[in-house]
């Protein structure tokens, strides 16, 4: 039986270059990131090329995803948040499609690696800091000083606010990574039960039906989780960007 962790192994496919003794390879992770981007490109460009008044299936999906993200931004970060629409839409679509492609058996899940999710979360974190400082100057630090707090507990509150601000990229990235990792390990463990019981003869094959049904049900659950985690990542990005746009509490 295959180890449930081996699905996350990064394999080198094509060697590209060698810089300072460390080799640079085109890996299966990079391949699936490329597939994700090409898939999104095909959906959006292919969907909107006809510009039909009555949208077809592809155009409906493209329009629905656009309106969904636009509504999310406007309800959490206001009209000014639409300036960040390209960033949020890119993050949402990339994570959603990468999660969905990862659910196909035999594929590689890009978002199950902390290095990918941490890069995305740090991108959001630094965007918030740079845009907040650019837009409001030092007024951005009002974010850490809530109104109406008695002066004698203010130092403690500011300390907690700063700490929670600094821990954002950690929880932002680990949430997506841990959900994907745990979900795929669970699927592989239950799939392992199916092959294990199936090898025991007739009685085993009948017994294997139960974990097989469970794997199907878990795949449906993972489909929900794949969408929910992409949505959570996008809505948290909007809420963090809202802090940069309107720093006063």
């Amino acid at each position, binding site marked *: 039986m295959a180890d449930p962790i081996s699905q996350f192994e990064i394999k080198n496919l094509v060697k590209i270059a060698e810089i300072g003794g460390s080799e640079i390879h085109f890996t299966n992770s990079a391949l699936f990131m490329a597939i994700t981007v090409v898939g999104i490109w095909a959906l959006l460009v292919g969907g909107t090329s006809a510009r039909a008044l009555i949208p077809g299936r592809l155009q409906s999906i493209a329009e629905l995803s656009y309106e969904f993200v636009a509504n*999310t931004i406007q309800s959490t970060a206001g009209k000014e948040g639409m300036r960040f629409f390209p960033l949020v839409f890119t993050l949402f679509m990339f994570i959603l499609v990468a999660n969905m492609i990862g659910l196909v058996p035999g594929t590689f899940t890009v978002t199950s690696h902390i290095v990918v999710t941490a890069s995305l979360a740090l991108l959001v974190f630094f965007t918030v800091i740079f845009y907040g400082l650019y837009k409001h100057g030092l007024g951005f630090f009002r974010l850490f000083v809530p109104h109406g707090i008695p002066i004698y507990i203010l130092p403690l509150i500011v300390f907690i606010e700063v700490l929670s601000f600094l821990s954002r990229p950690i929880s932002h990235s*680990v*949430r997506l990574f841990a959900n994907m990792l745990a979900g795929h390990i669970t699927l592989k463990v239950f799939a392992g039960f199916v092959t294990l019981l199936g090898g025991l003869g007739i009685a085993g094959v009948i017994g294997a039906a139960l974990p097989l049904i469970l794997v199907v049900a878990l795949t449906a659950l993972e489909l929900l989780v794949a969408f929910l985690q992409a949505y*959570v990542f996008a*809505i948290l990005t909007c809420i963090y960007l809202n802090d940069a746009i309107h720093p006063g509490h």
Partner: protein
Amino acid sequence: MDPVAAKYIGAGIACIGMGGAGVGVGAIFGNYLAAALRNPSAAQGQFGNLIFGFAVTEALGIFSLLIALLLLFAL
């Protein structure tokens, strides 16, 4: 005690913290459902708040998972 054994026991203990996050997430979704059944017309508008509360609560569980992962693989 063997340091490797202590590391594994520590990782297991750290995961207990995720139970607290489970209680919190259950409270959030339970209260949302209870409120949504009382006033279904207002439920749709609070979906974003629901997800935000879920994410913030879950973050605390993630920190304990992070400690467990650090103990197992990084330290």
